[in-house]
């Protein structure tokens, strides 16, 4: 600590310390810990907090698993169903994004001329800076009952009546894939860009097929990028709120919408916190899984 002060001078060292402690402690650690604490407490009106009823309890987690005490089902099928739906969809969206983006990233990084590559990257960035809500809105216009896709299909005679894409959740899945596709492309592109083109040529000269070259050389090289892209897409998809708000059908819920409901409509903050903790645990587990699977450090995941 002394050497830290000596190195930076008193004024600047104090500034550094204040900024970092404010951020790490007051913005990151304490809010999360307090939320964790709240999730184990009963939902009480503000006046009763700290009173004799304010004891630790597992009631909110029990509610997630078994439902309310009055329900007849053995498990809370609705909430668990929403939860599993969210996770499975997020995994699927991640896989689709990976397959969809890999060729593009490879093309931009290795095959395109530098000028084209830069233009393509710029073109990729533009939609990214347009609000997620507005992008979802664009998808909604496409898939609406009298929207463009329905009209084209009707015109072609492929369908006789308009398909309700929103009720079928097709619009939601398309929107989710659309929303975070760039967060898959950029890590992949960054990883592939560092690959030495000579390696590809050597593999080709030695008679390796295209598929084999990709499997044995390109993908192992890009694994940090793959891990990073998958993690980001999964986290953002599982924690998405804007896209489901715009695109989900009235009878489909996303897990974040469930949290939102507990929080804002039912005014049960501690249950909302408990559900948030569940989401957080899943997210962290996924990150650890990816790190283990691809043998990368957390620093390589977030870049």
């Amino acid at each position, binding site marked *: 600590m002394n050497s830290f002060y000596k190195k930076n*001078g008193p004024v600047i060292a104090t500034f*550094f310390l204040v900024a970092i402690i404010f951020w790490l402690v007051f913005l990151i650690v304490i809010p999360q810990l307090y939320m964790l604490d*709240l999730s184990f407490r009963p939902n009480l009106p503000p006046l009763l907090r700290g009173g004799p009823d304010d004891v630790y309890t597992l009631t909110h987690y029990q509610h997630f698993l078994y439902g309310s005490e009055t329900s007849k089902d053995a498990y809370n099928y609705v909430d668990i169903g929403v939860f599993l739906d969210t996770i499975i969809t997020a995994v699927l969206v991640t896989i689709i994004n990976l397959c969809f983006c890999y060729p593009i990233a490879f093309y931009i990084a290795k095959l395109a001329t530098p000028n084209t590559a830069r233009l393509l990257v710029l073109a990729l960035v533009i939609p990214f800076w347009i609000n997620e809500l507005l992008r979802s809105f664009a998808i*909604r216009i496409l898939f609406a009952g*009298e929207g463009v896709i329905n009209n084209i299909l009707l015109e072609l005679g492929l369908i006789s009546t308009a398909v309700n894409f929103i009720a079928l959740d097709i619009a939601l899945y398309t929107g989710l894939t659309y929303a975070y596709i760039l967060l898959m492309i950029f890590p992949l592109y960054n990883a592939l860009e560092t690959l030495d083109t000579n390696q590809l040529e050597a593999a080709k000269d030695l008679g390796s097929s295209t598929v084999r070259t990709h499997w044995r050389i390109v993908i192992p090289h890009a694994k940090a990028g793959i891990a990073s892209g998958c993690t980001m897409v999964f986290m953002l998809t599982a924690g998405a709120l804007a896209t489901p708000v715009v695109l989900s059908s009235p009878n489909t819920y996303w897990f974040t919408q469930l949290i939102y409901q507990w*929080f804002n409509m039912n005014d049960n903050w501690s249950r909302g916190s408990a559900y*948030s903790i569940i989401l957080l645990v899943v997210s962290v587990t996924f990150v650890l899984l990816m790190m283990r699977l691809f043998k990368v450090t957390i620093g390589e995941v977030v870049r």
Partner: protein
Amino acid sequence: MKHNLAIQAFLGLYILIFFLYLFGPLVIMSVTAFNSAEFPAITPWECFSFRWFNEGKIAYDGQRLAGLVTDRPLHEGIITSLIIAGGVVTLSVPIGMAAAIVLTQVHSRLRTIFYSMSIMPVLFPGVIIGISTVVLWDRIATLGGDGFISELGRNGIFLTILGQTCFISTYCFLIFVARLQRFDTTQEEAALDLGASQSQVFLKILIPYLMPAIGSSAVIAFLASFENYNTTVFSILSEQTLTTVIASKVRLGISPAISALALVIICLTLIGAFLYEISRRSNQRKKDRENKVKMFSEISENRLVEEQPRFFRIPKSIFVFLLVLILAVLTWQQLIKNNMYGSECIEKAEASKKSNFADQLKLLQQNAESVETTNESEGSAEGSKEYNDIFGDPNLFKDFGGFDTEKKEESENGATRSNEYNDIFGDPNLFKNFGGFDNKE
């Protein structure tokens, strides 16, 4: 060779599809902003108009749809968003910078822990950051009594700034870390050896070196804050930002005014990207020229005559612009020719819609009344045949009833109705039947 060509073609097609997927929805949304219809669509194209950018419209059924200029909540939301973004930038850039600089000074284990903690917020779902901020500050506000702290803890703008700073600082942190990796620390040492104080080193060497990173992280922080929804929706409490306004609009029903807003944002983004590209290219050219000059002076022989760079070169992108311009002019001409622009067209569309609406209303009323009459006639099934005929005639009752209740339709349908009225009275059967009716009684 042939095989190669096929792969090339396939790849080209794939890239085309990919970019179509990326841009298609945005383009279609932009086009719908110019359709005067209430529902954002392309195919039942009504009229070309700018109404969604200006005043919006009051629909034929009395529903009010605001345009961009007249939308008060939207303007207030934008102002709130700007305030929040300003706050986030002023907090997160210094935090990110401090953390990145300190990261270069700590080592081994501490460094790993510090780094992991710093990047954690990016891995948290945005909703969770919002929720944790709100629950903590609500507690602080409760404990703080009635004073300043309680005000602060329940102020949506303040909470949103804190919540967003939590993860936007990480973006800034990562930008600064990337820049600092290329920093030559011997510069600092040299300055210190020459007798500079630590603060002088910081202000005169480190800050100027970090200037590009400060600029780009400020831009990133601003944009990230401006478009954030997941965290904001929880922490904003009773206030409204741009994104929450948009979300509530979308949830209430989709209006082309949102398309218009999106188009404005897309245009701003395009202009930004364009300016960025231009500045980058001119920088690159300047650098190239400097290198060239350096090379020539190094060669120092006049054998190689320096070729003058051509002063003005037509950039290729101009052709794209010309193409777009020609397309736009052609479309415009088509619109004018088909009379799809201007107040005339809008009035026409409005009128036809109004009459459609009136027709539908009439039909509804008709149906309702015919149900009524059938019920009545069933009730008096034993009556005479003629009696049944009169009550069975839906036109009679509709029109008599119509005069009392339907005020709205009177103006448009007055003429046809009086015709029917005449017809009924002109119908010899009617009087015959009435007569018969009286006689029987």
